[in-house]
């Protein structure tokens, strides 16, 4: 398996999903997993698989292979800032400075290992190809039956591994650039995504919404695209512990990147509507992102700053604390391939409102749903939950049962079925 990140070093949903999935897959007896990340820190949970860091892989054949490798993979360089699936909150400070540009060989340290940052910097594309190169080495050295690559950053690695070992490639689409960019697709990213999908023997999408995009926008054969929904890790008692609320004011929470894809502006417009009728409500927009300043301006313009708060990016336990204080959780995403966060909110007994434009809405019945542009519908759902007491009770009771039934083990079995299909119907590309 190739993935860009793995807990605890994650910046969002991708790492969480990879972890849950491998954990679920570890329950399947005849399956051993080698998970390759660009940079292994050594403190990852390796109970369920063997984790290899591309930064720890010795690359001995560099001079011999590198030229050929480069010929096969058109080397891409872009100046634009890329926003991958898990745009980290502090992406501005991360970048790879070990990589020396304009040289023919990858930079190798004294032990023959390529240096990686494993982060999302402005040298991202270069890192992706370094990673892909190392992947080809790893696939030579580790016996395997299927190659599984998570999201576009790992597609070139998957392709490279397949070229070396000739084993079937499964591409796991956690998001596409159509989701991230709101339609303004970055041609470089699209190209990497399309190549990955074209080379794949089987494609896994995290929802039917994404499956449709993969079929329509990337021209994939529907027969090789299967939806496998994500799940959620059961939370511990401690995390579920009740936090005492300071006041009886109701709190409505948005938690996520403040970017176009997440629809923060709809949350603010709905807040304005709700506050006109009910003053006993507070709104919280936790997270950061390129639209943060614009959102703060808008809140001020609407004159609701006294009831609207921006606590910034929340980490680890702060997230659960915020959820415990919340009476409503809103995910107003414009385009969300899946969306694990509503599941986490429901586990914490928080009534949840999601958009019909999210993959998770395909499997949830006990969440209120609206179309992201319909601010009135969102406002109405918020108002209903904070006003009519029976409603949150019903949402909590039924929602908890519903999420508790979403288990990674089931997703893992579905992925396993896709592997079998991939092995049986392997495409011959060479």
């Amino acid at each position: 398996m190739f993935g860009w990140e793995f807990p605890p070093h994650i910046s969002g949903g991708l790492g969480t999903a990879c972890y849950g999935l491998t954990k679920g897959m570890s329950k399947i007896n005849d399956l051993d997993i080698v998970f390759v990340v660009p940079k292994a820190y050594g403190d990852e949970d390796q109970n369920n698989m063997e984790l290899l860091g591309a930064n720890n892989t010795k690359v001995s054949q560099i001079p011999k292979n590198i030229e050929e490798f480069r010929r096969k993979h058109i080397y891409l360089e872009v100046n634009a800032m890329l926003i991958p699936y898990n745009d980290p909150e502090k992406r501005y400070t991360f970048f790879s400075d070990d990589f020396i540009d304009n040289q023919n060989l990858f930079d190798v340290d004294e032990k023959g290992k390529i240096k990686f940052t494993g982060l999302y910097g402005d040298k991202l594309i270069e890192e992706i190809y370094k990673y892909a190169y190392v992947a080809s080495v790893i696939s030579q050295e580790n016996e395997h039956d299927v190659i599984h690559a998570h999201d576009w950053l790992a597609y070139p690695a998957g392709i490279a591994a397949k070229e070396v070992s000739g084993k079937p490639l499964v591409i796991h689409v956690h998001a596409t650039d159509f989701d991230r960019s709101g339609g303004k697709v970055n041609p470089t990213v699209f190209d990497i995504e399309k190549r990955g999908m074209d080379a794949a023997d089987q494609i896994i999408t995290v929802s039917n919404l994404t499956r449709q995009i993969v079929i329509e926008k990337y021209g994939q054969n529907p027969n090789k695209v299967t939806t496998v929904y994500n799940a959620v890790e059961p939370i511990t008692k401690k995390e579920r512990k009740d936090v005492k609320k300071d006041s009886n004011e109701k709190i409505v929470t948005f938690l996520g990147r403040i970017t176009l894809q997440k629809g923060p502006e709809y949350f603010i417009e709905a807040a304005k509507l709700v506050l006109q009728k009910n003053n006993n409500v507070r709104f919280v927009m936790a997270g950061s992102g390129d639209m943060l300043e614009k959102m703060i301006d808008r809140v001020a313009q609407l004159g609701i700053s006294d009831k609207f708060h921006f606590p910034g990016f929340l980490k680890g336990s702060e997230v659960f604390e915020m959820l415990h204080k919340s009476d409503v959780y809103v995910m107003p995403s414009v385009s969300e391939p899946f969306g694990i966060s509503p599941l986490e909110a429901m586990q914490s007994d928080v009534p949840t409102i999601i958009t019909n434009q999210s993959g998770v809405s395909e499997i949830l019945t006990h969440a209120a749903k609206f179309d992201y542009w319909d601010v009135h519908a969102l406002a109405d759902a918020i108002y209903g939950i904070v006003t009519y007491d029976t409603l949150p009770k019903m949402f909590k009771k039924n929602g908890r049962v519903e999420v508790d039934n979403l288990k990674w083990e089931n997703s893992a079995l579905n992925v396993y079925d896709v592997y079998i299909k991939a092995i049986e119907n392997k495409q011959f590309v060479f």
Partner: protein
Amino acid sequence: MKAICLYFQVHQPLRLRRYRFFEIGNDHYYYDDYTNESITQKIAKECYLPANAILLNLIQSLKGKFKLSFSITGLALDQFEHYAPEVIESFQMLAATGYVEFLAETYSHSLASLNNKDEFAAQVQTHSQRIEKLFGQKPKIFRNTELIYSDHIGEMIAKLGYEGILAGGARQLVESNKPNYLYSNFINPNLRVMVKNKRLSDAITSRFSDKNGLTAEKFTKLLNKGNQNGNIVNIFLDYEIFNENQTKNTSMLNFFTELPKVILSNTEFEFATFSEIVKNQEPIGAINMPQPVSWNKKEDNLSAWQGNDLQKEASRKLYILRNSVLRVDNDHINMDWKFLQSSDHFYYMSNNFFTDGDIHNCCSPYNSPYDAFINYMNILSDFKNRLTELNMHKAEAIPGYEYQKV
């Protein structure tokens, strides 16, 4: 001599419009006129009018040998009057033949029987008056919303002067092989209880799931075969079975065109109205049903209308307003009060939408029970505000009138 009672229920939900919370206090109009009008007119054209014409034809050609019964809710009558008055005329023509019986219902197709005794009585009476005015006959038999029946409901109906009541074919009610008898109420033995023959009624309703289709001949065989015991067969149907869709529609009409003649010539059954049964037959015993049951196919219980917390909360919040409504006694308030009680609103909040969504999605204007609840509660909040305001005015206007908070 055995009797077959053919009975159709006619109801049209009065759909609420999308009512957002910020309209509370600003806009007091709650109904989706466009949808109500277009659906009523469409169904009138595709179902009620052609079906009425065929039944009228049968009554006339069979000269007194074909009889049937209808119950039409007040909400359906209101909408016909507004949007398709020709439907009322065609029912009046059926009434004029003398072979069609009209039953009593709750005016609003409401769940008042479960929530408020006085409101229940008032609604049944209003409905009967309306029927008498339109069709020139005073209903003697009562049919409760969704065929909900209990000993207690029967007793209330007996007190109001009705001779008989219909009940669903619930398993708890009678053993499955015994719907074909006349029963009496457990508390008041003067009231007769007539039970739906589920097997035969369902055979017609789902006749198109039968591969070769259910013909009048096949139905007659079923009738002869399974019903040697007892002397009445009660076929209860929703009148909209004629409206399943265009192609099936005509074949359902054809089926009914054939059916009476085939039954009359191939069986010992005769058509009868419920009043005739009550007059001519003796009950074989009392039905004991302390808990209310309905027709609802899965559990025969009330879960579709009062099963979950949303539904219970919404009805509680509604019926608590009754005294206030009576005190205010304002035409607009009374009208909304009537319309807000319709069981349909509560049905849309049902858990069944989660489990067997397919059947229900087609009938509900909402995305989910939560959605239905929010919309309804927004409207109810506005309704309550109006009541409070009007009550205060009233208190000011009448010296010495004590204002009571709702």
